[in-house]
């Protein structure tokens, strides 16, 4: 997945803090904020609060304790659902990758659920679990579970022949082959599943709060949209973005640290949290 170097259109810069990349990024941010602020002033805060107003409101709802409390409520459901999905998803993906009969047994359901929008099941989830934390946990779980399973499964199943053969040739047992070749070879894929699942779990967390229980961060959005407080809505969205980007960053850092043998380009390239960043086998 090597990227083709592109020609720069900006003036060459002397080395220092202001590298070309930094300059482009900063310009982009300043421009976006300016457009946002100006548009906000033109249409009025009822439709779109500008960034200056959003920052003020962000500080307010943080200091009042409302935002931290909502964040805590959200994170509870997120954490339980996500950890549960990882703990169940990895072993299931491994079993499916290792035993063809297990794959045959589960594959149709996994494929079907993976392409179905989980939101379509929200009414059923309400019927089965009500609108309490169990329901939100279920939504988070079903949002990220399949990413974990499918990536783990692919990682275990697609371990290259050229890696297994030499170890088998040295007289390794099936168990040793699994421990010494398949597990370590699949580990970066498992990690990708964990990372992709994280992004989707955050999405699931917010959607659950929007669609079935007016609570947590999603609940704040619903509540404040009823009174047209776009400044607070944006403040909450910023928190969600920071939460998502931040946690994916941390996992990426962990990946490069755990798998130094993977060429860094395969781990770093691509947009964060997108399917395109699955490492090459």
């Amino acid at each position, binding site marked *: 997945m090597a990227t083709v170097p592109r020609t720069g259109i900006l003036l060459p810069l002397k080395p220092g803090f202001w590298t070309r990349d930094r300059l482009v990024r900063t310009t982009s941010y300043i421009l976006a904020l300016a457009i946002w602020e100006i548009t906000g002033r033109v249409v009025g805060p009822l439709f779109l609060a500008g960034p200056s107003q959003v920052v003020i409101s962000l500080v307010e709802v943080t200091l009042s304790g409302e935002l931290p409390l909502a964040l805590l409520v959200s994170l509870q459901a997120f954490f339980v659902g996500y950890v549960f999905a990882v703990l169940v998803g990895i072993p299931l993906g491994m079993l499916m990758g290792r035993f063809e009969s297990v794959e045959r047994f589960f594959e149709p359901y996994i494929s079907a659920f993976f392409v179905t929008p989980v939101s379509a099941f929200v009414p059923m989830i309400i019927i089965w679990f009500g609108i309490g934390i169990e329901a939100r946990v279920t939504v988070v779980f079903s949002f990220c579970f399949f990413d974990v399973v499918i990536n783990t499964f692919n990682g275990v199943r697609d371990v290259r022949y*050229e*890696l297994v*053969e*030499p*170890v*088998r*040739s*040295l*007289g*390794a047992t099936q168990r*040793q082959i699994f421990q*010494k*070749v398949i597990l*370590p*070879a699949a580990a970066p894929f498992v990690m990708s599943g964990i990372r992709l699942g994280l992004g989707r779990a955050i999405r699931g967390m917010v959607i659950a709060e929007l669609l079935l229980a007016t609570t947590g961060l999603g609940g704040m959005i619903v509540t404040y949209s009823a009174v047209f407080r776009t400044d607070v809505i944006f403040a909450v969205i910023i928190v969600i973005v920071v939460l998502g980007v931040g946690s994916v960053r941390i996992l990426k850092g962990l990946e490069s640290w755990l*798998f*130094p*043998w*993977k*060429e860094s380009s395969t781990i770093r390239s691509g947009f964060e949290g997108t399917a395109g960043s699955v490492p090459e086998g």
Partner: protein
Amino acid sequence: MENKIVLRDVSKTFVKRNGGAKENRVDALKDVSLEVADQEFVSIVGPSGCGKTTLLRIIDGLIPYDRGEITINGRPVGAPAQDRGMVFQTFGLLPWRTVADNVGIGLEISGMELQKRKPIVQRWIEVVGLAGFESHYPHELSGGMQQRVGLARVLAINPAVILMDEPFGALDAQTRELMQEELLRIWNQEKKTVIFITHSIDEAVYLSDRVIVMSARPGQIAEVLNVRLKRPRWNYDVRGTPEFTELRAHIWKMLRQDRAGVAAPPGD
């Protein structure tokens, strides 16, 4: 210890099922009989699809054979074991293991503890000329260096027989000649029995005591040639001797007949 390899009428047929009842049978090997003496260096050449790699994998135990008999030192050959070791064309190193950990994996598999493994691993890393690279990862090494690790990994388990499947096929010409010479030195020192598969006639003649020429469909032994070039071969111009040229031309002619005129130039 006597490390004689005996193959008697070894046959292998691959059956492919393309859905339904239709079967596609390919006779990869048909009645192959061969004896390789203790400490002998034997090369196998032949056109693509002549079953030479299949033969090697069968001897290693990676795939089963249908008929015939294979014994090493009188014992029949079964699943892969550490009395024989294989060097692969694609090196097959584990990318998450350092050089030292790749070399030691055979000993690890046989259950030897780390403290005992260490000096053995170190010794073989030195023999293949990789001292100083113990903690490097494979992707940090050149192709030639990676195959040195592949060779050290096999030498570390001290097998009686070393099977080499086009080990230098992925290397550039210069590295390849260097590796050939070093392989001969190591073989001379360690007294192993070697079966070496190659596409290069030149390489086969340079290295071997005998060259086995195989023909395709079904894979059979077409001819066995003795190479009587004086050893050691690294201290004179082997390739310039009349016998070398003659053998090379002879093998080339055989292979060309087999390929019925659709051949590439000699060498490789």
